[in-house]
């Protein structure tokens, strides 16, 4: 194919995709940036508010809670990343039960977060399955109101999310590990490396990019994909204990009918998202330079 000749027909091939994206992704994204500066109840015309929506955001205790929770969730990224890594490294060389595990561990991943959220909502009730199990195991001191203790709720949500993607991470890492040359492991063995040392010296560096990908996925999930599980498991509560920025958008729009303010929240979430993209681009550039 000649480098200089353009296939303008290609535009026909990408037109439907671009159309969908332009209309239902880009346009709504752009209008958000307009409405975020207005006061609008969805029925009458929006009124311009200037920056006062943002001032309101900064004063809003639900926003404080959302930011606090976003930080807490971000702090779970290391656990999100490392837990599957440890497991994957353990079964890099298949053992009896590897296949069994690989099959079962993806089940939480393929199941909808709605089902997971509702299920855990039922299991974590006051006298529900989890508390009953803890009592039977003699762990009475652990019995608590998992979904009502305000300091606990967001952590429960984070753990359930990690539970959901755990198998995904293991499969991902295992796939990448398969590309590492066995000779490196032989060399490590000769050097007398322990399992942990091997992990740090051979495995982790060998799948570095995949780990990075999973880390980024963790941030994306915790910053931008929490709605279904929070909506079904806790509804943002009690109070604002499990509020996250994403949820605030929904809450302001559909519970308080404050659509302009809801867009203000949305702008904040966009900023978070851009941060992630920016960080990723920086990372790629650094890789490129190397």
């Amino acid at each position, binding site marked *: 194919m000649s480098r200089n000749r353009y296939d*303008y027909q290609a535009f026909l*091939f990408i037109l439907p*995709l671009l159309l969908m994206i332009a209309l239902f992704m880009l346009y709504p994204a752009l209008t*958000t940036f307009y409405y975020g500066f207005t006061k609008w109840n969805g029925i009458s015309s929006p009124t311009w508010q200037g920056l006062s929506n943002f001032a309101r955001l900064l004063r809003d205790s639900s926003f404080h809670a959302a930011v606090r929770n976003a930080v807490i969730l971000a702090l779970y990224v290391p656990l999100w990343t490392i837990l599957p890594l440890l497991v994957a490294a353990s079964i890099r060389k298949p053992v009896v039960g590897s296949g*069994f595990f690989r099959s079962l561990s993806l089940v939480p991943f*393929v199941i909808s977060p709605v089902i997971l959220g509702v299920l855990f909502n039922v299991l974590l009730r006051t006298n*529900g399955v989890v508390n009953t199990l803890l009592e039977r195991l003699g762990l009475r001191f652990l019995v608590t109101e998992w979904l009502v203790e305000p300091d606990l709720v967001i952590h429960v949500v984070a753990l359930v999310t990690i539970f959901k993607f755990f198998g995904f991470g293991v499969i991902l890492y295992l796939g990448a590990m398969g590309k590492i040359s066995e000779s490196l492991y032989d060399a490590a063995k000769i050097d007398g490396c322990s399992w942990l040392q091997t992990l740090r010296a051979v495995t982790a560096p060998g799948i570095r990019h995949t780990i990075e990908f999973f880390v980024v996925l963790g941030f994306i999930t915790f910053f931008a994909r929490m709605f279904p599980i929070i909506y079904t498991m806790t509804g943002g509560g009690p109070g604002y204990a499990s509020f996250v920025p994403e949820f605030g958008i929904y809450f302001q729009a559909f519970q308080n009918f404050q659509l302009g303010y809801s867009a203000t929240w949305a702008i904040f979430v966009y900023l978070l998202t851009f941060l992630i993209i920016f960080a990723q681009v920086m990372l790629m550039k650094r890789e490129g330079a190397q």
Partner: protein
Amino acid sequence: MSRGAGKVVVSIGIILLGLLTVLPFYFMVVTSIKDTDSYLTEKLLPPSRPTFNNYVTIFAQLKLAVYFRNSIIVLVATLVPYVLICSAAGFAFAKLNFPLRIPLLLLVTAIMIFPQMVLGVQIYHLQARMGLLNTHAGLVFAYLGYFAPYAAYLMTTYFRGIPRTFLEAAKIDGAGLWSIYIRIMLPMARPMLVTVIIVGSQAVWNELPFSLLLLRSTDKRTLMAAIALLNGEYGVPAMEMCAALTVVALPIILLYVVAQRQIQRGILAGGIKE
């Protein structure tokens, strides 16, 4: 010897871990076959007298069949254009040269990260003005906009792996781009197409934010939104809820049992960057 013992420990550990990941679902199923009394007395173990009443109730009273039907309609209506749009775009990005190719590809990849809820509210209003709100068509369009980029990205990656020689040979034979695409590229892309279909099906079936916002009345509602709402204001007794969850989870579990390898491939295709 310690190596052997170590292996046994790992085996036991990994099997237990596997069981742990499905433990919640065990409780889901067990609870679904209990009646009120057996649920109140025993939360963990299966009931001595299992009942399927809850399953009857959820279909009779909760109209689960309607939501099922709607989810299927939306799924099928989405998948057809979804596959065509993504494979066409993937082919173009991978194999054709046109102005703005790289920026457009970057745009498509960047969109994959957009959070659903930020878009949700605005799409809701856009569609309200367009008259698409509370229609299945409107939801399909939203899904196409949201899920197609990732699939297009997968298809692009896949098509890149197909040697250029195929394309050039066909062009020498005088074939038009469209026929090259239909007769050569699509068949070659079948493995990835299957993956894309499975990934897409999973995404659409399991989706909540858009279906919650864009479909409003009961007769239009899809499964996940219905389940989420069921647990909201008008809660449902735990046993019935678990029955509903079991029924709703079943299709995806079946898909998983059948297409496990494809799903794993989808994970690897999207994620491995080495």
